[in-house]
């Protein structure tokens, strides 16, 4: 009986140690080089449908922090694709791949807007000269349960020089992050059901085109996630008529 107990606890201990080291992230190493990154992307895609998403040319390897990296590439099928990388379990891993060409929001930690990033790899179409990201919240007013309320409109712009940066990754501008943080803090004190912050702000992008008006959608889309820890959102095209111009 005594021996059984000792063996059982030893087995449990070893199992716990193995489990710990399987989950253990370790200290982040250097990013894979272009060839290795391309190989990793193709390896990840090989278990899914490929549809021409395999990497042909890695455009850049942008480290956002110690454990997160953004790697834009051009695919064999000619897509301007983006890949999201995370250092997890002692290895740089491809967490998500998108070939829709439009910008994305990457929330490195969902509760901290100062760690939200705007990332993009947009196909140079000859017509896009510049583009801007917009942080928008609709104006709202009225009365409910005899209480008057008013929510001011938020409209903030972050221009991007497309000629210089056809692809890139920038953190949310300081003011955007601060405003979001303020909103999130307040919503959390509401407690009960709305502990998770309900977002009522949106991010859009608006290409400034040489001739044609912006097309909404129209890009081929292919997005696939490999890791649950990656939280991304699409950024929609803004209808220019919705902008307020004082």
């Amino acid at each position, binding site marked *: 009986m005594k021996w059984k107990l000792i063996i059982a606890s030893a087995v449990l201990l070893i199992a716990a140690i193995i489990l710990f080291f399987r989950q253990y992230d370790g200290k982040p190493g250097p990013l894979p080089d272009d060839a290795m990154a391309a190989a990793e992307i193709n390896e990840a895609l090989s278990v899914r449908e490929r549809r021409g998403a395999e990497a042909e040319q890695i455009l850049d390897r942008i480290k956002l922090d110690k454990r997160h990296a953004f790697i834009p590439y051009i695919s064999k099928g000619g897509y301007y694709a983006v890949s999201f990388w995370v250092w997890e379990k002692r290895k740089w891993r491809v967490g998500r791949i998108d070939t829709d060409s439009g910008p994305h929001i990457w929330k490195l930690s969902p509760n901290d807007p100062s760690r939200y990033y705007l990332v993009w790899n947009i196909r140079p179409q000859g017509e896009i000269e510049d583009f801007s990201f917009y942080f928008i919240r609709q*104006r*709202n*007013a*009225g*009365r409910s349960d005899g*209480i*008057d*309320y*008013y*929510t*001011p*409109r*938020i*409209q*903030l*712009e972050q221009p991007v020089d497309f000629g210089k940066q056809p692809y890139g990754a920038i953190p949310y501008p300081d*003011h955007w992050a*601060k*405003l979001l*943080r*303020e*909103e999130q*803090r*307040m*919503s*959390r*004190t*509401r*407690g*009960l059901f709305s*502990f998770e912050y309900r977002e009522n702000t949106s991010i859009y992008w608006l290409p400034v085109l040489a001739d044609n008006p912006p097309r909404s959608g129209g890009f081929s889309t292919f997005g696939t996630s490999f890791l649950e820890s990656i939280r991304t959102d699409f950024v929609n095209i803004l209808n220019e008529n919705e902008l*307020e*111009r*004082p």
Partner: protein
Amino acid sequence: MQIVFGQPVNMVHLAGVLAGWCIVLYLTIRQYRKLPKKPVVWKMVIVVWVGLFAFNLNLPMFGQTAKLSILPLGVWILYLFFRKRSWDAYRRFAWLGFAANYLFLIVTLLSGAAHQAIYDKRDPSTYLADVGKAEIIGIHPSAQAVVWDPSEFASLLDTLQIGDMSDSADWYYQSKFEHEPYYQHERFPYALVGAKPSWGSGLRAVVYIEMDGKGLLIAAADRSYYFRSEKPLINGEAVES
């Protein structure tokens, strides 16, 4: 009650919950001493804790949500688990756990009342107790470059008058339609971020300042408050519209 590190905490409610647990502990010990046949202590503790589990009705009361427990789910589970074995020894503790729900209901109501007595929700300085590290952010293209002085702002807080918000729908239309005074402009184009509320209040609000610099819109979690000032709260070029 959820506590997030770095978030404002409602200290009154926290104190009430702690006191409530002390009472539960006291009642458990008293019950334990009374019994001629003593139950196992760790089992007793778990039984009290599981006994708390109940089906609740959420009743909104005085701006907070009170939980009224109806079905003693925890007690039923414990009964099924113990059956005839030693149910008699633990029955009291299971019901004690269920009864604790009503104790916490009283705690919620009392701490809510105490909170209202301590912190005045209609006083702007409750939300803006410390503006030393706060800053003004323009949130709309109609915002101008402004300067503001935190200490002057704080000194003006006491002089604010409650403003009329009943025509907030008009504010909306004044920005929406052509020929209206705020067309394509935002009436409150500045946000004040980074202010700290009164210590222990757990209250949070997003604060906006009107284009003329003399209006303060405090959007708290449950409702909005509007105040007007004689003197401008921020200095900049007010747009004459």
